[in-house]
């Protein structure tokens, strides 16, 4: 996983509330089983009209939105389906950081698993960052210090759990970490559970097995 440390960019704002993962990555593209190269499908219906032409009013079709690395997104962004394609498609566009008042929970978890920083800030601070996007002002996101620096000096503090932060800063993958540190603990748990709840370990055959 690519580490996330610090990022400076002009953010791109998608301030609508409740942008769901069907809008971010429409279901009909879910038949594709690859996770690379999905950027072309991002926000497909909002980006293109029925004839496939770009809709000029959509922010990602405007000059400032063509290479988004920081998105300032609306309340509950990424709600709905658990499809991780919603993260892969943004990552393929170059997005590394999303800032919202609140995220769809599964989407936010999926971001962290792919090295994307998805942080929440208070509504007022969020509004100022959305203004920065519209005004074309750079912001700096510093994960180690958990701060967003605005151009005129304001610092907005955010919080991420230490374990999540460490994983992002170092580009650690969950599976690798768990296999390295927790195998004994998993074995012990299974031994205890096998005694306490043996029905969870009974092999029941199904017809046709």
């Amino acid at each position, binding site marked *: 996983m690519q580490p996330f440390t610090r990022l400076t960019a002009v953010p791109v704002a998608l*301030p*609508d*509330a*409740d942008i*769901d993962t*069907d*809008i971010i990555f*429409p*279901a*009909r593209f*879910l*038949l*594709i*089983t690859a*996770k690379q190269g999905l950027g072309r499908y991002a926000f497909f*219906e909002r980006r293109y009209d*029925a004839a496939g032409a770009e809709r000029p009013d959509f922010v990602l079709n405007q000059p400032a939105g063509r290479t988004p690395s920081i998105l300032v997104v*609306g*309340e*509950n962004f990424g*709600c*709905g*389906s*658990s*499809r*991780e394609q919603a993260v892969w498609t943004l990552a393929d566009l170059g997005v590394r950081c999303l800032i919202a008042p*609140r*995220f*769809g*929970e*599964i989407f936010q*978890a*999926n971001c962290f*698993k*792919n090295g994307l920083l998805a942080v929440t800030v208070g509504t007022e601070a969020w509004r100022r960052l959305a203004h920065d996007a519209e005004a074309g002002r750079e912001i700096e996101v510093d994960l180690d210090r958990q701060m967003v620096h605005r151009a005129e000096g304001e610092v907005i503090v955010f919080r991420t*759990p*230490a*374990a*999540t932060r460490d994983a992002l800063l170092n580009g650690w993958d*969950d*599976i690798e970490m*768990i*296999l390295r540190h*927790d195998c004994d*603990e*998993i074995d012990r*748990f*299974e031994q205890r*559970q096998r005694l*306490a*709840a*043996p*029905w*969870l370990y*009974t092999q*029941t055959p*199904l*017809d*046709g*097995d």
Partner: protein
Amino acid sequence: MSVAVAAHPRTLYEKLWSAHVLRDLGDGLALIYVDRQLIHEVSSPQAFEGLRARGRRVRRPEAQLAVADHAVPTRDRDQPIADPLARDQVALLARNAEAFGIRHLGLEDARQGIVHVIGPELGFTQPGMTLVCGDSHTSTHGAFGALAFGIGSSECETVLATQTLRQRKARTLAVDISGRLPAGVGAKDVILAVIAELGASGAVGCAIEYVGEAVRALSMEGRMTLCNMSIEAGGRMGMIAPDETTFAYLKDRPLAPKGEMWDRAVAYWRTLASDADAAYDRKVFLDASELAPQVTWGASPDQGGAVTGRVPSPDHEESPVEQAKIRRALDYMGLTPGQRLQDIPIDAVFIGSCTNGRIEDLRAASAVLRGRKVADGVAAMVVPGSGPVKRQAEAEGLDRIFLDAGFEWREPGCSLCVAMNNDRLTAGQRCASTSNRNFEGRQGLGARTHLMSPMSAAASAVAGRLADVRDYL
């Protein structure tokens, strides 16, 4: 897993959580053990590919169950799947299951169906478990007193490789539903009203527990409908304490514990209910006895209300964000403020999905349809949630009622709830649907979805417009 008396009163969620914590990671995070995983064709290919790329094995193949549901066609099942992408995706699931030693129910299997219907049906889902699936409606299984939640493909891979997940402990939200459901009002109406009350993000970060006499009175099917849509209020999980209704449903299911194991399991399951004086972070109340049938008018599941109401006006909202959300929804849905909901004509009806594709749903809808006909110009279909649901309905003659009324009677799958197979609506078509999401494009590009109960969908099919089922009882 011990039944020792805790030092302080705990909720169902807290009991399930603490029974599965392997290691505290600080800041509210923990590594938790996952007892079971359901796997479908859409969210798993990348997980299996990840295992393969790093030469990893599946830690407990026997704790997984795979079935294709999203991309499967609902007719001509004796033919190869016409769409080559869907055909490959469904075949890939079978190959991955075979390669990693995971139990898989193929399309030809009589028990195939939607993951969230077959898990409970087989007794794969049990109280006290942690259960995950790469699907946001995994909260359905919480109806059994399980800690069940949707995950992405990366987490699916983590569970395959380690049988654990790093998770954040949720806050607890009790939704207390009192009173008796009036005639024509069911679990779907209750959950739509709850979502409208909480809002689409009202339960983000929360584990919802549904409590109260109206919940206790629900069948397992109704409880699953309730828990299923928790995610539509932002809650990653919804749950209900197991009781006699739960045990009666599970007893003798193929994968349920048997004999002495059953008795031991039930004894443990009885300890799971929230302690009488356990505290929740938040509590909301709903009186079911005053509820009218619910229907959504917008493009988010919280944009709904009583079928007797009217399309709202954005001008009555104070927040600009909320105004914009309503404007966008009305534009997409082709509706105008003040319009009576019951004057809205429909083109299609869909009865099915992991929310409302169970036998009780088909009984409720067919009871409304008996002796009636679908209105001219309305295309109506029933997609049973699983093979067993379909056969049970046929044994009861429900298929005849649907067919005589003018419905199509299809094979099991997710179908028009997610429109990934070839069941989809065209732009501008308006559907009375028992599914769970009315998002833009959810039932096809430009299609318009009104969420409602199976009874309301049946009444709407007959009326040719959104209808109050109480006029048809």
